[in-house]
């Protein structure tokens, strides 16, 4: 994984994972970047596990449930919501390291620092509607099963609409990254990745009707507002994790074009 200055350093230890990690911690010049990359990989896997398996809040339930059905929905996942979102609260701050690493990709480009800084601030803000508000509201919904179902229904709407319906941070954030990739002359990312950012931005446009419809393809659980968007998001995330890994392998800590990988 490492391509640290050859010859001058002790050879990378083979053997246990722990010894490998210790070697990188001591000698790898790119350790800060690898810390960022592994945080991204671990976090996205955990995010999937927490939202799809433990809390079972994804895929989202129907917006059109009656208050009694919503109270039942909370009752069915009582422990999952409370423990799952507790873990989300603990690891939520990891997004800071992730966004810093992605901002670094823009800093390595030939573009103005303004792109990296905008991205960093926009995505720092995005953590709240992206998961933390949902965690608080679902916990409040789950903690008192005897709460008036009419209020449970309001908490349910608040949770899912803050999560699905806060669009601007991801819309503008993706467009900032897109513009940076397209303007960059250091070949940090291939140009087609710029257009993939546009696809991700467009998913935030088509989700807007979730604020209006309680049923159908545009509702928050619909084929367009949820299923297509999730497909694009998973593709986008997988692609940028792969490209970011290549960036780190190619990184020479210079300011000019990034060298290509030999082979």
């Amino acid at each position, binding site marked *: 994984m490492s391509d640290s200055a050859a010859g001058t350093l002790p050879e990378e230890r083979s053997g246990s994972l722990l010894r490998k990690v210790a070697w990188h911690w001591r000698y790898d*010049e*790119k*350790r*800060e*970047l690898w*810390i*960022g990359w592994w945080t991204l990989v671990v976090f996205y896997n955990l995010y999937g596990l927490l939202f799809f398996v433990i809390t079972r809040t994804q895929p989202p339930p129907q917006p059109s449930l009656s208050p009694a059905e919503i109270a039942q929905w909370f009752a069915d996942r009582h*422990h999952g919501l*409370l*423990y799952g*979102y*507790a*873990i*989300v*609260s*603990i*690891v*939520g*701050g*990891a*997004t*800071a*390291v992730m*966004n*810093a*690493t992605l*901002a*670094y990709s823009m*800093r390595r480009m030939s573009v103005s620092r303004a792109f*990296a800084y905008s991205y*960093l*601030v926009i*995505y*720092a*803000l995005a*953590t*709240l509607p992206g998961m*933390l*508000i949902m*965690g*608080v*509201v679902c*916990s*409040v919904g*789950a*903690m*008192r099963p005897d*709460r*008036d179902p009419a*209020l449970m229904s309001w*908490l349910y709407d608040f949770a899912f609409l803050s999560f699905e319906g806060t669009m601007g941070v991801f819309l503008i954030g993706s467009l900032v990254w897109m513009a940076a990739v397209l303007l960059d002359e250091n070949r940090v990312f291939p140009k087609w990745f710029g257009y993939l950012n546009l696809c991700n931005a467009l998913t935030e446009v088509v989700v807007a009707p979730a604020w209006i419809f309680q049923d159908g393809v545009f509702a928050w659980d619909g084929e367009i507002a949820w299923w297509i968007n999730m497909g694009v998001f998973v593709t986008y995330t997988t692609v940028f994790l792969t490209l970011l890994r290549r960036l780190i392998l190619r990184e020479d*800590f210079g300011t000019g074009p990034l060298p290509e990988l030999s082979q």
Partner: protein
Amino acid sequence: MSRADGERILLWTLPVVGVVWLSAFLLFPGFVQPMSPTMSAEEVAAFYRDPENLPRIRASMILFNWFAVGLIPILALIVLQIRRMAHRTPIFSYSLLACAAGGPTIFLMANLFWLLAAFRPTRDPQLTLMFNDLAWVTFSTQVGFLIAQSVILALAIYLDRQQRPVFGRWVAHFNLVVAALLVPAAFAGTAMTGPIAWDGLLTFWVRNIAIGVWIVVMAVVLARAISRQRADEAVAA
């Protein structure tokens, strides 16, 4: 006036902010004897309707509303110290900057819920209970940015490999201990009584004292780092 002078002015805002926070903490009738999650809707409504409590709730939360962001300049000073460390990339300083807005924003959300509950205390007690729950759950469970802040700072210090590191290694160990002490609070939603509940020993007392101690210790080491930096710059000039 040098850059370091301006930094010292920012640093000296901390004791002022600290005094305001402590006063607001003591003024809020729901903190000194933390409100229990087992209170019924009627009891919670009565707490907000009590003519003794209501002005104190409003005044303390208005103070917090004004000064909750008071820690951001101090975090910005820590970001600048991280930039002086022997790192290859700005990832740690970027990360801490990304955390800096998170903690205060979350505290402001809790603050809004408390103020909303107090705005019309004659509302249906079920609504007052819900706003009170939202305030306490936000305040208690959302420790993620604070944990990240300490862990990032600890990593940055461990990887600051130069002859005279900016902060001593004990500051990194200290930050990891603080991060660990904040973890139980995240589970406040799972318990209505006991140490994990939002009025419990771990979630309320240990966590809030850990945050207080972190602020004091970091202010002292920051002041020392800044004055050392100032001395170094004077010699270099």
